[in-house]
């Protein structure tokens, strides 16, 4: 087994046994990136020098045997909307092409304290707006399972990097499915924690009431290790919640006897690829065989989730992205005569098409005369969607659904039609609106060898149940061990 193929847990065991050093592990992964990334284009920047410094620092800690955490010496890739001091952070946007943050995001501080090794920054849809990573201002990332297809988005670079062993694990961000959907398309594990579980300080804001940072990993226990390291209250993010952070790996046990799993009938509706539906149904049957109780449930407002989500997210985005004005950092249009012209041309030249669309629609939804009809209406529907989940969780412990209606689509297939692209987010966006936590785990492959994911959803701050169910299912299947042939 090559070192870059190791999971977090396997690598950690070998580091602790002194079978390998972090230096060897990091060099192995960097070599893998050099070899494979010219085909995949997952990374926007590889911070090789920083990675080697951190690896040597980690080896010192490991040699001394003190201050060792589960991530000490583990190479991790970071989505390019998470600030790391001194490492260029672009959000895959031309407007931030030369932005180098003067500070660390709180999750990066946690990773540094843990002694993790930061490999570099991964490609994404510009400002996390998209479902295919095709909206990147810099490059198209390819799906390691089929190079003609998209890796999903917006954390497509992180998912592709983990799937092709160009990182032991990665961080992404999820506003409407941006961790779970690429995880599903690339056959890795992707977790969106409960809103408020992980600090958003230093995560470049898109939809502040929806955004959450989470792990993309090779298996469930690795996701538990990473979440345990990055979760927790942060005075710098007043929406982070002050609750103790357990060791989430302690919930990774094969016990789902009696667990009540709700299956929402609205999630197996028209537009669903029958192959995907079959694989997800088989996964649910597997959990039933293992002793879980399957309960038919209804989330009646599901069909309104896309409109509700996009209005909320675009409104928040239009406000959040007002900061890109060409004055403080980032790109500035040359040769302008006055300040309004400077703002307007900077933003017109710096933002891509989808970002402009969302700023326009969000501004419209918040503007005088339309605020009640669009924005307030969406906030009321958001209440109804949240209630759907609250009602469901009175009857069940967990909800099982598909992640997406189809497997990964072809590059170019949906990019010309924004609305069709939005509609592919149907199964992932509701829980961001409701704040719940959710995980995507591999549940098989289509006849065309494309990965399919199973989504498990738990009530707020019940990541423990999520890990229990996800781990039990994963251990009963071989899917997470299958690797793409690159």
């Amino acid at each position, binding site marked *: 087994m090559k070192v870059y193929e190791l999971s977090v847990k396997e690598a950690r065991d070998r580091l602790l046994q002194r079978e390998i050093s972090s230096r060897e592990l990091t060099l192995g992964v960097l070599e893998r990136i050099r070899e494979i990334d010219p085909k995949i284009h997952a990374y926007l920047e590889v911070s090789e020098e920083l990675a080697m410094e951190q690896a040597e620092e980690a080896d010192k800690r490991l040699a001394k045997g003190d201050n060792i955490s589960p991530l000490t010496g583990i190479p991790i890739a970071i989505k390019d909307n998470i600030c790391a001091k001194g490492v260029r952070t672009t959000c895959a946007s031309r407007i931030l092409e*030369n*932005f*180098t943050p*003067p*500070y660390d995001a709180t999750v990066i501080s946690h990773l540094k304290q843990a002694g993790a090794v930061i490999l570099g920054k991964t490609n994404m849809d510009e400002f996390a707006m998209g479902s295919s990573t095709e909206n990147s201002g810099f490059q198209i990332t390819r799906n390691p399972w089929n190079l003609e297809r998209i890796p999903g988005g917006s954390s497509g670079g992180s998912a592709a990097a983990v799937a092709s062993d160009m990182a032991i694990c990665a961080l992404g961000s999820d506003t409407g499915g941006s961790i779970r959907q690429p995880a599903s398309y690339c056959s890795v594990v992707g977790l969106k924690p*409960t*809103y*408020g579980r992980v600090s958003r300080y230093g995560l470049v804001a898109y939809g502040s*009431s929806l955004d959450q940072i989470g792990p993309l990993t090779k298996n469930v226990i690795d996701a538990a290790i990473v979440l345990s390291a990055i979760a927790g209250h942060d*005075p710098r993010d007043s*929406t982070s*919640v002050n609750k103790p952070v357990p060791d989430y790996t302690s919930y990774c046990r094969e016990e789902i006897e009696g667990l009540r799993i709700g299956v929402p009938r609205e999630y197996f509706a028209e537009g669903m690829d029958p192959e995907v539906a079959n694989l997800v149904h088989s996964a649910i049957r597997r959990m039933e065989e293992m002793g879980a109780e399957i309960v038919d449930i209804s989330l009646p407002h599901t069909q*309104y989730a*896309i*409109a*509700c989500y*996009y*209005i909320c997210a675009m409104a928040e985005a239009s406000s959040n992205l*007002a900061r890109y*004005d060409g*004055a*403080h*950092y*980032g790109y*500035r249009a040359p040769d302008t*005569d*006055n*300040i*309004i*012209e*400077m703002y*307007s041309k900077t*933003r*017109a030249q710096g933002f891509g098409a989808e970002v*402009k*669309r969302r*700023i*326009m*629609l969000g*501004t*419209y939804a918040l*503007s005088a*005369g*339309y605020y009640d*009809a*669009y924005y307030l*209406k*969406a*906030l*009321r*529907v*958001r*209440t*109804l969607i949240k209630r759907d989940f609250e009602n469901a969780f009175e009857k069940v412990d967990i909800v099982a659904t598909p992640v997406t209606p189809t497997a990964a689509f072809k590059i170019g297939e949906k990019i010309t039609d*924004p609305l069709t692209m*939005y509609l592919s987010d149907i199964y992932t966006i509701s829980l961001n*609106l*409701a*704040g719940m936590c959710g995980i995507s785990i591999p549940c098989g492959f289509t006849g065309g060898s494309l990965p399919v994911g199973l989504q498990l959803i738990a009530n*707020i701050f019940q990541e423990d149940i999520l890990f229990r169910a996800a781990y039990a299912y994963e251990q009963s299947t071989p899917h997470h061990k299958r690797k793409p042939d690159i």
Partner: protein
Amino acid sequence: MMTAMNPRMSTSMSEGRINRLEIQHVALLSRLHLTEEDITEHTVILNRILEYFAKLNELDTEGVSCTSHSINMNNVFREDVATPSLTAEDALANAPEKELNCFKVPQIIQEG
């Protein structure tokens, strides 16, 4: 060119189509410079998306409260204690233009 416009605003969402004048108004509010071609493209695409958004009108939301934040949380207060923050040098490090330890921008106030 950048003076405020008063496009005809329709208030009902069923007529929520957006015309060229409104696109220009929203672009001004958004501080986005649009070409004639951009305006045409935005008018087509935004109308399609807004028409889809109108689906929410099928729901009666009379008396339903708003959710702007998914986790129950009210104002979060902290003690007013000064903590270290960025130095002026760090804060200015990414500035497109700077002078005398300040961000430099084009003229804001026209001379009378």
